[in-house]
């Protein structure tokens, strides 16, 4: 068995969509849903320069999930969401307390808060390894391949699909709904917080709601891609879209495209190399960012080089 498996076009490109569709179909759908839901909220994180809050929260939901599991003994949706939201709120409060009551700056406060919570989560998992249905590997890698194997969820006689996929679909639907309903408010408070608060929008409320929205998205994506790759899913689609367009609606659209492309291409890559599917999706996502970085219409390296060439050599005067 070699490090890079034998290349077989049939197995890599055709089988996932034909014979193995029942297995890979759900995986692709789940990756797309994760990328799309995370990408939508990620666009706002990037606009508000809070990308690293996404980093912090995706780490710190872990103890929330573990504690919720230890308390209720089940991996139900409601306790998990409640634990994650509580952990997210705790993180923002901790960061604020450290930042406000000492000379430690915000960046270090973020670093201290999330690493402590994440460490706590890992220790809880290690200590209660027998009772907690999570392991350290799952925390980092997610368990995307296991999702299609779980018994499908049925609602009113209809078979819907694996519960994780259904949950993620609901979160995506909910995110789209939030954006449609509060598009104006989110846009204004992200671009011009001063004007937003002058017009009577509560910036603190918007911030906290965004954090809760983020934590719900993160916790449902957590199961599929793991703690750290969630950050990639949060930032990569939005960052790629930001290199393509200036308009927020267009950016949101492009981040959905990015999510779809990295889901499909990531699947093929992971079959081709026989590697972790979530990792492969992130690698493809980074590659797509690289493409946008090089060939993007305004900021792209090529167009920058071209416009410099058009202008000719710079004169001193």
């Amino acid at each position, binding site marked *: 068995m070699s490090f890079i498996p034998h290349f077989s076009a049939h197995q890599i490109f055709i089988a996932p969509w034909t014979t193995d569709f029942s297995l890979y179909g759900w995986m692709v759908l789940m990756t797309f849903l994760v990328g799309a839901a995370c990408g939508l909220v990620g666009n706002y994180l990037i606009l508000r320069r809070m990308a690293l809050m996404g980093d912090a929260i995706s780490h710190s939901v872990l103890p929330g999930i573990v504690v919720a599991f230890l308390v209720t003994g089940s991996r139900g949706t409601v306790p998990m969401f409640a634990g994650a939201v509580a952990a997210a709120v705790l993180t923002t409060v901790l960061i604020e307390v450290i930042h406000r009551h000492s000379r*430690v700056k915000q*960046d270090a406060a973020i670093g201290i808060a999330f690493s402590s919570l994440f460490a706590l989560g890992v*220790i809880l998992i290690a200590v209660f390894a027998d009772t907690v249905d999570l392991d350290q590997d799952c925390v980092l890698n997610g368990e995307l391949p296991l999702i299609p194997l779980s018994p499908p969820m049925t609602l009113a006689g209809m078979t819907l699909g694996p519960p994780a996929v259904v949950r993620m679909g609901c979160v995506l639907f909910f995110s789209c709904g939030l954006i449609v309903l509060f598009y104006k408010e989110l846009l204004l408070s992200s671009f011009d917080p001063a004007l937003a608060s002058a017009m009577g929008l509560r910036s603190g409320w918007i911030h906290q709601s965004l954090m809760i929205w983020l934590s719900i998205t993160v916790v449902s994506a957590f199961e599929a891609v793991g703690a*750290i*790759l969630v950050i990639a899913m949060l930032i990569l689609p939005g960052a790629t879209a930001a290199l393509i367009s200036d308009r927020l609606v267009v950016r949101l659209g492009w981040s959905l495209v990015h999510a779809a492309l990295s889901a499909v291409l990531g699947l093929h890559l992971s079959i081709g190399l026989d590697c972790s599917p979530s990792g492969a999706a992130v690698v493809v996502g980074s590659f797509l960012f690289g493409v946008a970085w090089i060939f993007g219409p305004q900021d792209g390296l090529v167009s920058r080089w071209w416009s410099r060439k058009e202008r000719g050599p710079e004169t001193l005067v």
Partner: protein
Amino acid sequence: MIRLTPSFAGQFLGIGGLFVGLNSLTMTVCAARIGDITETVWQTQAIRFLTLADPSVRFAVFGTVLLGIVCGLLGGFLVVRRMSLVGDALSHAVLPGVALGFLWNMEKDPVAIFIGATVAGLLGTGLVHLITRTTRLKEDAALGMILAGFFGAGLCLMSMFQRLPTGNKTGIDKFLFGQASAIGAEDIRLMTVVTVLVLGLICVGYKEFLLVSFDPGFAKVCALPTRWLQHGLMLLLTFSVVIALQAVGVVLVSAMLITPAATAYLLTDRMHRMLIYGALIGMLSGVTGAFLSFLGTHLPTGPFMVLSASSFFVVAFLFAPNRGVIPRWWMARSQRVRIVRENTLKAVYQILENEEFRRESVSLRELAERRRLTFDEALREVRSLVSMDFATAVDDLVALTPSGWQRAASIVRNHRLWELYLTHAVQMAPDHVHDDAEKIEHILGEDAVRQLERRLEFADRDPHGRPIPAVQVIHGRPNGNREKRATGYGKSS
């Protein structure tokens, strides 16, 4: 059968006198032979750790001491430059390098891993720099992207690696959350070299690194190679991350950079002290973490180190002298109490002054009226004065002691001097100066008062026409004459 910790197996072999300086591979193989031991008793583990009985424990302790020193020291530069999260991105970005280092000759070769991880870390930080310079994306997005993108690539490589027949035995999975007991003799050698290198460079170039960190513009003017110094610092940081990987793990290394240094930042103002404290705290948390994770069977080391560092931070956050939450709360509280006390003294003085100091004492009722308080509240304030020996109370009559009298007179003097200063020097209207003086009277020091008096030429009336108590009055008699002007403050009257 449970899998034994490598250290346990190492101890077994150490007693047998078979090997010294085993690597984790042989330990895992040998562990199968004593698989009948089913329980790890934490007391015996604790004793084994504290007595440093077997080599793997000694390696673990020595290794964590080294990494704690290096991380705590270099983290200081990150924390003061508000670049803590660069450390986070850097530490995640090394993962593909670690995996490629493993791939080099399919085993845990510390030097190959060191080189791979350093290259990957530098590549990652370089890309962050490039992204922020050439696109509209801000640093936070670039950091997050590089962190997660590199980590994803690393996970892919690792999952491919673990598929191989030999992959699972090399202990590459220990690099994610860290296992101090997997540190071997070769690791120690490498860590020692890097630590000596880092310490030497920081000692030699301390002044230059300090200048570049706090004032890059000035450093440039001084013709220092700022760019090279910055790159050099980044290289040293990458080194510190890489040598910490084995024990702390990729995921939490950044905390070992940030938390000890941030704790030291709360304790001192001087950079060299901060670096030393950071190194000490890093060392302590490293050893504590290694000890705690040693007590159980499958406990990863990294999270325990991070939690011990965080508990040091919490202690410093709460109790650090001058800057901790509790000392500051205490100082604020005692200042509030002092201000209330001084206001009471002032009220007593003013009541006596209104009657031109013909009486020696005021009644509690007069005091309560003057301070606009209830009788009980006034009583409480008087008790506080009595407890400080500023006043004596007989029945409901309050009289000031000499020290209380001095204090009261100097507060009134501060108040009236400041009013005069504001009307004369700042040209504020006399009816606007009272509120400001109410605040400043409690804060003015003797030095400032002396300057004010000189500047106002030892004036004896405030803008409202009331006398300003002179030094003789304060240090002597209530109705002392004011012919002699004060020239300075002596202890004697």
